[in-house]
């Protein structure tokens, strides 16, 4: 199982969970499994079947947009991070 880390802004859709274990060999498959487990997430994260421009997806800290996008492969030990897009200097928690 790979791990999807859920940002605070989306946790109301995962019953408060910070991370969700999913199966799937690509980002698309992993997200489909995530949406099957937490259906309300689909509309928050996608628009017309496409990943929202407000969301960045990383596999092992690497932005998938610069790899194979949603077709980027995901291994069982990998961590997928969903983050609100916010390039900039915000550096605190």
């Amino acid at each position: 199982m790979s791990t999807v880390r859920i940002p605070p802004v989306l946790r109301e859709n995962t019953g408060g969970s910070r991370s969700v274990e999913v199966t799937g060999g690509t980002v698309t498959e992993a997200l489909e499994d995530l949406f099957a487990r937490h259906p309300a997430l689909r509309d928050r994260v996608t628009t017309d079947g496409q990943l929202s421009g407000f969301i960045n997806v990383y596999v092992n800290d690497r932005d998938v947009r610069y790899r194979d996008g949603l077709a980027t492969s995901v291994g069982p030990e990998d961590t997928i991070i969903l983050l609100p897009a916010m390039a900039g200097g915000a550096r605190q928690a």
Partner: protein
Amino acid sequence: MPAPVGPSTANDLLDAIGHTPMVELRRLAPPGETRMFAKLEGANPTGSVKDRIARAMIEEARASGALAPGQTILEPSSGNTGISLAMIGRLLGHPVRIVLPDNTTAEREQLLRLYGAEIVHSPGAEGSNGAIRLAQRLADGDPSLFMPYQYGNEANPRAHEQTTGPEILAQVPDVDVFVAGLGTGGTLTGVGRYLKRERPGVRIVAAEPMPGEQVQGLRSLEDGFVPPVLDASVLDDKYLVNNRDAVIGVRRLLAEEGIFAGLSCGAAVAVAVRVAREMTGGSVVVLLADGGWKYLSADLWTRDIDELEDELEGSLLW
């Protein structure tokens, strides 16, 4: 009449911006053929890469008439840009007002005040975006203020396209990969445009700060702020870097190469090493945006890293 001076003497401090050293990182580079080089932007007059863009934004604004003689400059900044503007304002006769989150290090406020800048605090919990919002509100309410706005000012990437990029190519003509931290996006965009034009095939790689939980929690998705000057099409790769890895990078820079650098430099180096490890040869250039001086009070170098990591979660250092 002033005594004659040598050809390498600058007219004033503005003239001394840029032309920073490039040093090979022989000890940090992974074993193998790949070489790593660091562009030391901490060697700029106020100690950071931001001197370049502050000079460009102010010179362009004065030339176009957008900034009148004696007019006050207002800018949101977590430190470096504000300090550069404060130095330039002092030289050119502009009062400077900086909107600064209230949880940065003390050194930044000390330097700003020494240069005579006025500080307006924004809530630290809102991060850089809170400073931007407050500065925009102040500028909207007072037409006598001029806001360079580094996040949306094309002079920012242009300064890097015209100065940093050519310097890098002259210093490392066979550069294959360029790595820098992602803040406004000006460095990556400007250097990326220049290098891609002059050396097709070069890869531009961003090190992005991992935002902490509290900042993430304050935002709705639709708040997502991508700086207008960032041209994401020049990027070839982007990595998230957390505070812990950035601190480890800062410590390795000091311990192994003797380079005293700021937190974002540690993040950029972490990414540069990761990229270099995946290469079988070639040259990686990493831009180190500032020196470590403005981080001394945070003591990135000697404190227990778990303790430091917790504390960094609540401060604004990048």
